[in-house]
């Protein structure tokens, strides 16, 4: 009986109920959308870093720090045999050194990054370097990222003078030819980076067998003389950045939930406020306080569950559409954030679950509390519309 009364009341409320349900559903979709978009950002950033640089972690030469170029020369290490024996799908040997490029007679400090050309661990579009001999000729072949090429005003086929120092600190200079300009989804391996064959860079610096680090597919145990840096350590700064951003996302989430709550609260309070005479009448007709509270709470629950259902329908549509177009992030092209491709949503079921539960709980709670309050007061107050003012 209570269910059918609640359903009658709910389904005959008309436009107000529909609006209430719609607003709540939209708020739920917005909340989940917002969270999922951040997940998408984070996922792409992590993926791009892993794909182009991090792999499953680095075995670094002792003391190496990518952020202090002046020490790169002193922080190299011979590849330990334990790593050397790994296949080219399991490891990528990398040597980085400082260099100075003189495109159009301007000085441009660069990171010379030599990478084992046969490696397949990282996904780098360096095929342009493959056709060259391991033995270094008169001109050094190099690949540039799009951003680097643009900054240095270089294009495919251009040459520029490169100066560097070898193992003994002797400065050497030679022409570099840009054999390819490629798109790199991680600006950190693009801007200021001159990609070279590892064998060439070793030859140039007389650092046979030396690396700054060896990227590996996974941790292969302790390796003498090398320090292992996990994926988390290597992407810590970017995760930190996103986490900072996420904090805003969380604040945004709280605001959205709050707004949704206020909206629902308002309509429900207004609803009960307008209906307190009805509550009084029900009391006069002899409906017990418990039953009256049940009816109103059920009405609130019906609204809540209909909202969830509508959110599911609207959300599925919106998300499907969004996944087909993605979020354009061309405005990030100039940034160093490794998010360069369209961002897609990553939906985490746990986030969906708790967002929904919170909003549903708010809806039910505020259809329950005011009515409970009214039924605890004199029926005469409700009948005169004075129980809640």
């Amino acid at each position, binding site marked *: 009986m209570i269910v059918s009364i609640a359903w009658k009341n709910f389904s005959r409320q008309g436009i107000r109920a529909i609006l209430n349900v719609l607003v709540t559903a939209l708020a739920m979709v917005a909340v989940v959308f917002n969270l999922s978009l951040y997940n998408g950002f984070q996922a792409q950033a992590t993926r791009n870093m892993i794909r182009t640089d991090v792999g499953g972690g680095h075995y670094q030469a002792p003391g190496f720090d990518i952020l202090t170029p002046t020490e790169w020369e002193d922080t190299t290490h011979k590849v330990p045999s334990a790593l050397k024996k790994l296949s080219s799908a399991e490891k990528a040997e990398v040597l980085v050194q400082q260099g100075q490029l003189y495109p159009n007679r301007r000085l441009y400090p660069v990171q010379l990054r030599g990478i084992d050309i046969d490696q397949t661990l990282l996904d780098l579009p360096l095929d342009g370097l493959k056709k060259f001999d391991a033995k270094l000729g008169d001109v050094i072949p190099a690949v540039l990222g799009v951003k680097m090429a643009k900054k240095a005003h270089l294009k495919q086929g251009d040459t520029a003078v490169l100066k560097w120092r070898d193992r003994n600190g002797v400065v050497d200079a030679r022409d570099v030819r840009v054999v390819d300009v490629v798109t790199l989804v991680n600006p950190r391996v693009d801007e200021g980076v001159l990609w070279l064959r590892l064998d060439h860079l070793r030859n140039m610096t007389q650092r046979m067998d030396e690396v700054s680090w060896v990227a590996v597919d996974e941790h292969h145990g302790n390796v003498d003389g090398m320090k292992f840096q996990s994926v988390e350590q290597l992407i810590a700064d970017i995760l930190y950045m996103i986490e900072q951003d996420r904090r805003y996302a969380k604040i945004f989430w709280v605001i959205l939930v709050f707004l949704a709550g206020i909206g629902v609260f308002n309509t429900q309070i207004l609803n009960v406020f307008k209906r307190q005479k009805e509550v009084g009448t029900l*009391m006069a007709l002899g409906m017990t306080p418990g039953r009256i509270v049940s009816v109103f709470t059920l009405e609130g629950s019906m609204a809540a569950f209909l909202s969830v259902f509508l959110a599911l329908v609207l959300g599925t549509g919106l998300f499907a559409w969004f996944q087909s177009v993605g979020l354009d992030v061309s405005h990030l092209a100039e940034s160093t954030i490794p998010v360069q491709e369209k961002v897609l949503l990553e939906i985490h079921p746990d986030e969906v679950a708790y967002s929904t539960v919170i909003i549903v709980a708010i809806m039910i709670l505020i259809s329950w509390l005011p009515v409970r309050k009214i039924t605890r007061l004199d029926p005469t107050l409700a009948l005169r519309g004075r129980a809640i003012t």
Partner: protein
Amino acid sequence: MDTLVKIEKVVKVYRVGDEDFTALHDISLNIEAGAFMSFVGPSGSGKTTLLNLMGGLDKPTSGNIFFENINLKDLNRTDLAEYRRKNLGFIFQTYNLLPVYSVYENVLFPLLLDGEKESAVRQKVLDLVEKVGLSDQVNKKPAHLSGGQCQRVAIARALVKQPSLILADEPTANLDAENSYQVLELMRDLNRQLKAAFVFSTHDEKVTKYVNREIGLEDGRIIWDKKRDGNGVLE
């Protein structure tokens, strides 16, 4: 006649801000089963308060109200709801119909509260709707009815369970003369047919012609109590 309601030294004090205001002073009276009577008096004389106390919607500050030997004082909120559901019908000045329900559903509602199945009582509800002259309006919502029609729905709703006491607080106050007479006649007929006691509050003189007993209230005190004598004269 048997006593239906016994009011014993009832005092009602309202607290308004820091001040106490005595709305009813030491009221005692008996109401007989099947009575057709009214409380009359100017606005603020305590009519509504007295009806609310009898209806268990409010509690006296002191004194007792017995309904068929039940002392209302002994009932908690849920018991009072039960008491109203089983024994009372209310008719309000402002009708207080459930707005989303049709005429039929409004009249049916008290039976559903009693746990009746709709199919079992459908005919009874329709008969009563006919009795109050609303067969043509049976599926309309209150918003589409006139004041007189709404009050007739409210009367049907109050009577559908054949309670022994109907409390009607200024039932004709919002109605024009014509509708007032119709409603009063309807209630008198139903009083005779169904034996339910009707207790009105009113300051409408038209009511006087119909009732068998009239009690004057002023400032929360009974100032007179007239019953219709053998010649049909109130005194």
